[in-house]
């Protein structure tokens, strides 16, 4: 894709039409009323990073409390609220919007050679909805908190005290933000690809985001309906889920997981999408099996809709249902294996550089390997019955959600940071932080696989003394992880205080977002790019594509 026939002026001498997007308009108002996808992406980025910080503080509190059985730093009631908020914030306010709403918002139109997303005003609106949802969630935290777990299982959630209705309403509102972002990206990918860019000329990131957007649009309404029903039961006593009112609590779980299992792929597919960009760039190599990776994303998205029952093997659903869901679940293993091996083999005969984004991508390969393989344990019904609702599950989904998605997000953040802010961060500091995050993450969550296998249930405030050693190892790991994030925050903020020093294409990538200035001008490109090759044509010199 490097071959842009109408050449953009990368040097970017700024007259007032060509000023970079960060300087096109001053003051808070110019940001709050912008329809520029890049500015909206940046606003999302700061919003979700704040939420990540908040969720992270809760995570550190959880680990500290679990340093000893019984009370360490907080009461049982507080602990239950803290782990609920940790989960709810991380899922609804950080991970789901992290890659799509923040990073993809910024780079997707650039990658497609477009000036903006298909519906720029809708894009801004979805950020406002997100902020409204975030404020409602914070209001729920300060007006009594929520102690239901992020899953809001009934009838506990309809009978406990606290601001459950407000918190579920926040998730309801956030869902609309997610739906609108999805709609916007589907339309953008269908209609705004640059002239000459066929579906299979798109960077794989766009395929991943496309698959994600489809799930966001199709699955999120089910969550919205479910949460609305929950609010109605809790507020007006309409019996839907509580058996005392004639309802069925297992029905809630079906509804909830019908959304929340696809939501797992809303979280992981964008992570995979980032890895599909970083590895070819830092290997300077054609991606291996483009179509296999593209179709794997879509296949995972489709299968994700029919495996929700694997969260419910112990819920009292019929044995037949459990068997069918277990069977279908195993098909997720195949596209995941395909992708993993394709990424690894992409490095074969490449020219591999170990910059921070690539270190995150390599970490991803190992951590996603563990996350994926431990998923097989949980897909096998008999083993899952033992491991369900234990720390094994906690460890497994943290390897997928954090070890894979968040690590990929951090890789993407380091990869596109120079493009977004026009500044390079300290590479040595970034490598140290990446190593600390990798080590700290494994130290935190590897012991939890053993804890769970030995029978330690999750969401436990108190625990038997025999589990203490492994809990302490996990807590110490969380400190290493926290230190890694502190260093990261330090050098990223430090880079923003420097003068702009990032070249247009510091990583020598061939995708379109790197073929314009860093940071890009408001309209992205001086002239509409015309594409004459694939996004990963590292086998030929720049400018020798089929249109040349």
């Amino acid at each position, binding site marked *: 894709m490097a071959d842009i026939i109408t050449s953009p002026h990368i040097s970017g001498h700024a007259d007032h039409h060509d000023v970079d997007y960060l300087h096109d308009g001053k003051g808070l108002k110019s940001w709050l009323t912008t329809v520029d996808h890049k500015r909206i992406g940046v606003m999302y980025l700061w919003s979700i990073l704040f939420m990540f910080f908040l969720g992270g503080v809760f995570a550190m509190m959880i680990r500290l409390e679990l340093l000893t059985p019984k009370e360490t730093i907080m009461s049982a009631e507080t602990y239950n609220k803290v782990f609920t908020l940790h989960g709810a914030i991380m899922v609804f306010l950080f991970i789901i919007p992290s890659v799509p709403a923040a990073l993809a918002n910024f780079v997707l139109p650039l990658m497609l050679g477009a000036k903006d997303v298909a519906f720029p005003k809708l894009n801004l609106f979805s950020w406002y909805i997100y902020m409204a949802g975030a404020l409602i969630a914070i209001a729920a935290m300060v007006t009594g908190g929520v102690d239901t777990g992020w899953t809001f299982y009934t009838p506990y959630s309809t009978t406990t005290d606290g601001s459950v209705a407000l918190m579920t309403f926040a998730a309801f509102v956030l869902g609309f933000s997610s739906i609108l972002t999805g709609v916007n990206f589907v339309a953008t990918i269908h209609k705004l690809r640059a002239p000459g860019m066929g579906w299979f000329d798109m960077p794989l990131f766009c395929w991943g985001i496309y698959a994600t957007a489809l799930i966001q649009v199709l699955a999120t309404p089910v969550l919205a309906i479910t949460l609305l029903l929950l609010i109605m039961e809790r507020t007006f006593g309409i019996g839907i889920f509580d058996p005392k009112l004639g309802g069925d609590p297992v029905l809630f779980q079906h509804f909830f997981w019908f959304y929340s299992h696809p939501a797992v792929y809303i979280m992981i597919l964008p992570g995979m999408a980032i890895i599909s960009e970083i590895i070819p760039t830092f290997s300077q190599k054609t991606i291996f*099996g*483009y179509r296999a990776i593209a179709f794997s994303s879509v296949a995972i998205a489709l299968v994700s809709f029919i495996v929700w029952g694997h969260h419910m093997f112990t819920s009292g659903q019929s044995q037949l249902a459990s068997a069918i869901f277990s069977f279908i679940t195993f098909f997720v293993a195949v596209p995941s*294996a395909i992708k993993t091996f394709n990424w690894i083999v992409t490095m074969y005969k490449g020219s591999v550089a170990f910059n921070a984004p690539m270190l995150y991508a390599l970490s991803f390969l190992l951590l996603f390997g563990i996350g994926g393989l431990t998923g097989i344990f949980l897909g*096998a019904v008999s083993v899952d019955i033992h491991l369900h609702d234990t720390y094994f599950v906690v460890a497994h989904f943290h390897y997928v959600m954090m070890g894979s998605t968040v690590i990929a997000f951090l890789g993407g953040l380091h990869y596109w940071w120079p493009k977004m802010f026009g500044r390079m961060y300290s590479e040595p500091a970034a490598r140290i932080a990446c190593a600390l995050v990798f080590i700290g993450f494994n130290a935190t969550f590897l012991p939890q696989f053993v804890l769970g296998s030995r029978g330690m249930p999750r969401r436990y405030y108190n625990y038997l003394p025999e589990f203490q050693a492994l809990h302490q190892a996990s807590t110490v790991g969380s400190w290493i992880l926290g230190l890694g994030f502190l260093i990261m925050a330090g050098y990223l903020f430090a880079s923003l205080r420097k003068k702009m020093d990032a070249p247009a294409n510091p990583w020598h990538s061939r995708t379109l977002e790197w073929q314009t200035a860093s940071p890009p001008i408001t309209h992205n490109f001086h002239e509409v790019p015309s594409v004459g090759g694939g996004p990963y044509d590292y086998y030929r010199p720049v400018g020798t594509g089929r249109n040349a």
Partner: protein
Amino acid sequence: MDSIRHWMLGPQGSAYANNVDDLYMFLVWLSVFFFVLIVFLTVYFAWKYRRRKEGVLTPNISHNLALELLWSIIPLIIVMGIFFWGFNDYVRASVAPNDAIEIHVTGKKWLWAFEYPDGTRTIGNLHVPVNRPVKLILTSEDVLHDFYIPSMRQKTDVIPGRFVDLTFTPTVPGKHQVFCAEYCGKSHSDMMANLFVDSPEVYEKWLVEGDPELQQMPPVEVGKLVYENKGCNSCHSIDGSKNTGPSFKGLYGRMEKFADGTTQMVDDNYIVESINNPQAKIVAGYEPVMPTFQGLLRTPEMRGIIAYIKELK
């Protein structure tokens, strides 16, 4: 190998547990194999093809159908095998044999109550004979709970308004741990029970006489056991600290103020009433959340808990 297995999975209580562990350990070694393969390939390719010179062109290796089919089909075959293995064990473990002892289990915040075929009722302690299939029939009185016996590798959610069952055949005598594995609020992590796997003779004797150690103990000791095993400790402290219910410390002989403004001196009859009909008088400042224990304490146990509360000055 056996020590790794034991370290990872803890003690086994049944033949079925051993089947589950076989599959678990197979998956461990399979995962180790694939993980080592991923690490090896990643590190090997990354290092062997590390960048030595800037700006080089690399070969265009776009795909290789044979290779891609290979790493699609091999995982598919392996996971299908795993599916049938796990499914087969699961189905066999789901069906209770006809000669199984049926014991009813009720979960409520935050204790487990058991009712045996002969009408014996206990809280917090489940006794079963060794080598005989047991079918637990479970329900909940309030929210979702989950009856989890790690050593049997068995668990099931316990659902209000519905009966579910859980089957196991214990082969290892002794005490086994039971947890609540479905989050149920404040004392979720204290909602445990003990599973005692007895020899058939001991089991029969226990059904008739109750716990043998209780008969020789002074009432205060009995009361302490009742306090710990029947779930009192989930809500009532013995050190004066406020919990879901009033502390037992200094309770006996005190004038208790109730939510309706009346008062009463705490004596033996008040304690009996509070245990059997806890909603009758609600102490001011507390929620009416205690379930009834009517019929769940034998007379010596009731005497014991009264003596125990008396002791806590």
